[in-house]
């Protein structure tokens, strides 16, 4: 009897703790959603309430019809897709060679890639700004794409190397006997086999790039070149003119693609986070 009550009590404690954990993670997001559904007056009422009454979608409509929203959305998509495409284009061949070949100098090359991964973006702000300014390359979309790609390139190489390591080398050898070139082996045989891995790397890279603020804000501050993230922060800077219900709707719209991508690939996302992070 006493053991039963004790068990019931510890189960109840566990449920309460679980509710607290999930609630504290989701609570602030729920508040943001609630505010986004309020009209501008209710959003700043003296007694804040979680349930919007009356609920309205007008903030979302205002975001979609805002005059710069279209170009900001387009830039966000363009930068995320472009950076991932460049990172894959340079990362896949490198990852393949890293997995399949040994040659003098390979160690140094891998060390250079490792070293660049330890240079934080913040340490590059002032020199990159100086160089771009003097070359007249600020506010240049292509330059921005290359910079964003360089941030995710090292991890792309390592992930590719790991995925290709898992493909039996006998497949390469058999195809080589049949006269296939190295390029054919990579593109026709190996890549189709690691497609899920490529998708995971692409999504993780796209989320990183989509969420970037600082690179775009510093190197391409032009209104026509900025992303949703930059536009969002600019709203916050305008402390007087800000409409919180509009800004919350904007923030949620800017987050939706990331949340969808995450839910789509959450298994790989979690696998990517924990890849080897646990000491066996």
């Amino acid at each position, binding site marked *: 009897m006493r053991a039963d009550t004790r068990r019931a009590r510890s189960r109840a404690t566990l449920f309460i703790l679980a509710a607290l954990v999930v609630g504290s993670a989701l609570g602030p997001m729920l508040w943001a959603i609630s505010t986004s559904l309020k009209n501008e007056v209710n959003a700043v009422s003296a007694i804040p309430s979680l349930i919007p009454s009356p609920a309205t979608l007008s903030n979302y409509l205002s975001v979609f019809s805002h005059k710069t929203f279209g170009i900001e959305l387009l830039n966000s998509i363009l930068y995320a897709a472009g950076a991932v495409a460049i990172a894959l284009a340079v990362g896949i061949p490198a990852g393949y060679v890293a997995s399949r070949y040994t040659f003098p100098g390979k160690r140094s090359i891998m060390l250079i890639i490792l070293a660049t991964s330890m240079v934080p973006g913040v340490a590059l702000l002032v020199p990159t700004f100086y160089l771009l300014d003097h070359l007249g390359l600020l506010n240049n979309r292509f330059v921005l794409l290359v910079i964003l790609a360089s941030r995710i390139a090292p991890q792309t190489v390592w992930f590719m190397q790991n995925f290709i390591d898992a493909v039996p080398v006998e497949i390469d050898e058999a195809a080589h006997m049949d006269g296939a070139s190295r390029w054919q082996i990579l593109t026709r045989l190996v890549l189709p086999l690691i497609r899920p891995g490529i998708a995971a790397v692409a999504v993780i890279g796209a989320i990183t790039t989509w969420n970037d603020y600082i690179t775009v804000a510093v190197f391409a501050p032009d209104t026509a070149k900025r992303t949703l993230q930059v536009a969002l922060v600019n709203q916050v800077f305008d402390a007087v003119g800000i409409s919180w219900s509009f800004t919350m709707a904007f923030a949620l719209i*800017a987050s939706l693609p990331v949340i969808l991508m995450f839910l789509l690939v959450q298994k790989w996302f979690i696998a990517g986070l924990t890849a080897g992070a646990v000491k066996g």
Partner: protein
Amino acid sequence: MLWFVPVLLLLLTVTLYPTVFVIWMSFQKTRYYELKGFVGLENFVDTLSSRAFWETSYTSLVYMAGSLVLSLGLGVLAALVLNNLTRGGAMLRVLTLLPWTLSMAVVGTIWLWLFNPSYGPISYSMREVGLSPGLMLGDPELALWLTVLVTSWWSFPYAMVIVTAAIQSIPRELYEAVSIDGGSWRAKLRYVTWPHLIPTLGSTALTLGILYLTLITLLIVLTGGGPLGATTTLSFEVFRGTVQAVNIGPTAVYSIAILLANIALGVLYMRVTGRVTA
């Protein structure tokens, strides 16, 4: 090898060249965005002998340490709790991980609104229970701790996921052995779970430490480095120096300080795990 050329070209021009260039900049006399000639170690001497540099470094340390303690603590708690649920643990973990996928710009905006001293729910609740909310993020005594809170809300899910993986890799037999010896859940936690978690916590602390050291956007949105410089970290100072561009020599010195700290933490990470950073 030819197939390495594209990635090397990318990293050499966009990452390594500016890294070398920032070192070159730090030895130059600067005025606005002009380099005015070699001055040796003058920028280093000026910066390292200034109060501001050490105050900023101290703020960085406090911010990093505070965020680490809170996010690792919450991460371990969340991992243990959700892992002990018989059903739904995996789904609740996915939901709990959502904050980590949000951008720092979005996280900062949401919390700026939550902390709003006039209309935010937090200041309202404080007034309801008879506390004075004050200026919240506008209070120099409070701003850094609220920033730590937001940083931890955003990043504890990352710690949770890593710790969960570590817990799940512990062999069941070890728990059974404790049960056979009549040990309670407390004994299991202390003698089985905890020793297995220590190395994972070490490597997670280093990964998050690097993140906190180099983070800027959250600070830009929440406090802009203020009030009265209370949340100006080394990285925020680099951002301020870059966009204000009054004198970029000292900013280069701050950049190098962050670079060295990042490399030190990165190398330590490799020593601890025998692996490269994700």
